[in-house]
């Protein structure tokens, strides 16, 4: 069944197999398998309601899958809590941004850096991360007072702060203008090339996905309908049908 995955070289960092998540009668994620190699950037696309965020929620421990398994960095993380997943090295952003509103930008990121460092060091690391995502001037601003764009960046900074091995980015480019998108593309690329992180990104911006992703996975109605190199996937009739509707 799973002949498509494992196409990219490098050893598997994350391997999810046959994940299923049901909400009552609705199957949000249906037998989805996914392999991510070290330093690989995977684009996760699909129409609204395809189960992309649900898949993220399973992979990051926010939700328990009804069946299937997740291996990450040599460990079995099936059904592990969000805390355990974060400690194992899975960093994520939330599509519906969730800043710690009463803390400053600096403190938000410091909270994550505290996972591996004492406070003094964590504060320094956090300041550097904030700088890196381009929020330097906002360092001391209360997170609750940020614009949506800044909140998205803060999500990214927070996900980085726990020094993850893999980043799950949930539509962090949505709402950005063209030049901001290009900046973010460079930034995401540097996470993989420079920091050696693996990335799974849910993204509607196809330009970003095409230029960044080593591999694209397409979900529709909770099922994986295509997987492969970006230029192959966009030509896949099943993908075109899912996005544009099949001309029956």
């Amino acid at each position, binding site marked *: 069944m799973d002949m498509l995955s494992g196409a990219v070289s490098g050893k598997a960092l994350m391997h999810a197999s046959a994940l299923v998540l049901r909400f009552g009668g609705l199957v949000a994620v249906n037998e989805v398998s996914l392999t991510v190699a070290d330093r690989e950037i995977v684009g996760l696309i699909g129409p609204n309601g395809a189960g992309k965020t649900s898949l993220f929620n399973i992979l*990051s*421990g*926010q939700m328990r899958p009804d069946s299937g398994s997740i291996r990450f960095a040599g460990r079995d993380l099936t059904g592990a*809590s*969000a*805390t355990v997943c*974060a*400690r194992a090295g899975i*960093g*994520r952003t*939330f599509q519906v941004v*969730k*800043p*710690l*509103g*009463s*803390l400053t930008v600096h*403190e938000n990121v*410091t*909270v*994550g850096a*505290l*996972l591996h460092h*004492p*406070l003094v060091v964590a504060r320094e690391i956090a300041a550097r991360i904030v700088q890196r995502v381009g929020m330097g001037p906002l360092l001391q601003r209360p997170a609750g007072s940020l614009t949506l764009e800044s909140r998205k960046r803060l999500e990214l900074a*927070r*996900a980085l*702060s*726990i020094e993850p091995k893999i980043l799950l980015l949930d539509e962090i480019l949505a709402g950005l203008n063209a030049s901001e998108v290009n900046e973010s593309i460079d930034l995401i690329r540097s996470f993989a090339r420079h920091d050696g992180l693996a990335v799974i990104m849910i993204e509607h911006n196809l330009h970003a996905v095409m230029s960044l992703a080593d591999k694209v996975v397409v979900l529709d109605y909770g099922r994986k309908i295509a997987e492969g190199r970006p230029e192959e996937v966009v030509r896949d009739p099943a993908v075109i049908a899912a996005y544009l509707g099949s001309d029956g």
Partner: protein
Amino acid sequence: MSTLFNDYYLNIAVMTCLWAALSGAWNLMAGYGGLVSLGQSAFFGIGAYMTAIVYTKYGISPWFGLVAGILVTTGLAAVISWPCFRLRGAFFSLATLVFPIAMEIVANNLNDYTRGPSGIAIPFRPGLDTFIFRSRWSYLVAAFALMMLVYGITRWIHRGKLGLYLIAVRDDEATAASMGIEIVSVKLIVVMISAALTAVGGFFYAQYILFLDPPSVFSINISVQIALLSIIGGLGTPFGPIVGSLVMTPLDGVLSQFFGGGPRLLIYGVALLAAVLLAPKGIVGTAKEWRRSRWTC
């Protein structure tokens, strides 16, 4: 006459410090961790009763009662809070309301130890070993020290890892978990610190008032008062509970001297409303905001 006069105002000063300490202990879990408990009087009463029982029934120094009270309340806080952590917001508050009510029933019926509704009178034997003093000044020094202890611990937590973790958990649990925070452990730690400090307050109360009965220490009013002082002074700030108590405890004392009964509660209620309306983030919180807006504009 002058000593009576003095004693009256000294008593208000002592109670101001004690209430500030109790409210400060609550502020740690409610103000920082978002755990708005209405069960603090359970820990207060257990601390007081452990002290009184150990001293009057077994004749052992109340200092041992203090240690026992701290151990029992800390353990109990962990055990009873655990199931409540599954509840959020008002549901958590309502669940915690059960504990002082339950403890009051226990104290009323555990006659062999608590002497039930008739209460325990603690014999007046002054000395450091009994923590009973002739002068209220000594109590004032002790109460002030307790208040400053709570303040110091709060400051320390406020500036440290635990404070950040608590605020993270309060602001958004999903985000906190996604950053690797063990949410239940963080909550447990703060609840245990809070309960231990509240038990120390109970110890002080027992050796100061020298009389305990179930309603005087387990009453829901105590839990509510503890919460109100922090809310008025400023939730989630180290200084808030002290400010709240400095404003409200003397006001309550003066009002009960001049009015008593109904009019006192009426004026107290109006003062409370005014505080909440004029300073919704508490006196300290609102002052901070006001200062910030003046500086940035």
